[in-house]
C-alpha cells in the first residue's frame, strides 16, 4: 500500500519523537517517561486495539449488507422524530470511546443518514452508552446519572440541529479517512 507521506508528516514526527523519548527514558531510567508509557500509553493502546478493528469490521459489513434506500427511509432527511429516536437508540447500544464512533458516522452518512441525525448519533453515543451507564450509576448514583442524561439529550439535540444546518449550508462531507 502506498502511504501519502505529506498527509502523515505530523503524525510520523510525533511517533518518532515519542519512540526516541521512550528509548531515552528507559536507558537513563527517567521515571516520568517510563510511567507515561506503562500507565497511560499502554492502557490507551490496549483499548484501541480492542475497540477499533471490530468497529471498522462492523462498518465494512454494514457497507456491503445494508442498502442506501433502507437507511434513507429510516434515518434519512425525511425520517423526522422517529429517525431521531432510532438514531439515539442505535447510539446507546454502542461501546468504546467516541473516536470509535467516527467511522460509523462516515458509513451512516454515506448510506444517506441526514446530517443532523449524524450529529445526534455522535452526541448520543457519548451521552449514554448502556454498558457505561451501569458503571456510572455504580459510582455516582442513579439520580445523578438519570438527570445528567435527561438534561444532556435536549441540549445536544439542539446542538446537532445547528451542526446539521451548518453542514448542509456549507455542503460539507464526511471522508472515508
Amino acid at each position, binding site marked *: 500500500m502506498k502511504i501519502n507521506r505529506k498527509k502523515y508528516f505530523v503524525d510520523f514526527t*510525533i*511517533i518518532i519523537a515519542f519512540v526516541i523519548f521512550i528509548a531515552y527514558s528507559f536507558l537513563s531510567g527517567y521515571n516520568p517517561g517510563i510511567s507515561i508509557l506503562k500507565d497511560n500509553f499502554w492502557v490507551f493502546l490496549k483499548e484501541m486495539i480492542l475497540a477499533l*478493528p*471490530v468497529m471498522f469490521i462492523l462498518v465494512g459489513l454494514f457497507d456491503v449488507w445494508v442498502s442506501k434506500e433502507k437507511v434513507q427511509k429510516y434515518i434519512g432527511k425525511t425520517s423526522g422524530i422517529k429517525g431521531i429516536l432510532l438514531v439515539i437508540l442505535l447510539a446507546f447500544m454502542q461501546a468504546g470511546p467516541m473516536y470509535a464512533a467516527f467511522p460509523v458516522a462516515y458509513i451512516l452518512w454515506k448510506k444517506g443518514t441526514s446530517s443532523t441525525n449524524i450529529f445526534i448519533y455522535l452526541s448520543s453515543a457519548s451521552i449514554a452508552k448502556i454498558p457505561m451507564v451501569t458503571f456510572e450509576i455504580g459510582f455516582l448514583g442513579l439520580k445523578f446519572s438519570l438527570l445528567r442524561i435527561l438534561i444532556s439529550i435536549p441540549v445536544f439535540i439542539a446542538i446537532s440541529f445547528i451542526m446539521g444546518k451548518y453542514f448542509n449550508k456549507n455542503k460539507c462531507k464526511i471522508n472515508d479517512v
Partner: protein
Amino acid sequence: MISMIILISILTVISFVLDKKKTLKGIKKGIMMFVKIIPTLLSVIILVSIVLYFTTNDILIKYLGNEAGIEAYVFAAIIGAVSIIPGFISYPLAGILVNTGVSYSVISVFITTLKMVGILTIPLEAKFFGYKISLLRNGLAFIGALIVGAVMALIFKNSII
C-alpha cells in the same frame, strides 16, 4: 466492550455463512480504513498519554474543589475538554472527586466535556469531518456541557458563584 466484540464476531460469522464473497469484501474494506487511520491514531494516543500524565488526581481535586466557585466549572470544562479518560477510569475518579467535596454539577460538566469534547482528538475527527466541522462541534459541545452543568446546579442547589 467485550460484549461488543462477541456480538460483532457472531454477526461476522452469520454474514460469512450467508455470503462469503460479500463478507470478505466488507471485512477488507473495514480493515483498510483502520490501517489508514493508524498513524493519526497513534500520534493522538501519544499526546493523550503525555497530557494525562500531568493531570493527576491531586490537581483535579485542587481545581475542582467545593470552594472554587465558578472557576471550578471552567476548570472542569477545560480539563475535561483536553483529556480523554476511558470510562472505567473516569467514573471511579469522579466518585473520588465527589467524596472529596466536588459538587455534582461540576462533575457533570467534567464528565460531559470529557466525553463530548476532545481537543486532542480533533486531528482524528478532522480526518473524517474536516477541521471546520470538528472545531465547531467541539466548541458547541463545550458550551453545551456548561449548560448541562448549570441546569444540574439548579437541581442540586449548588451555588454557581
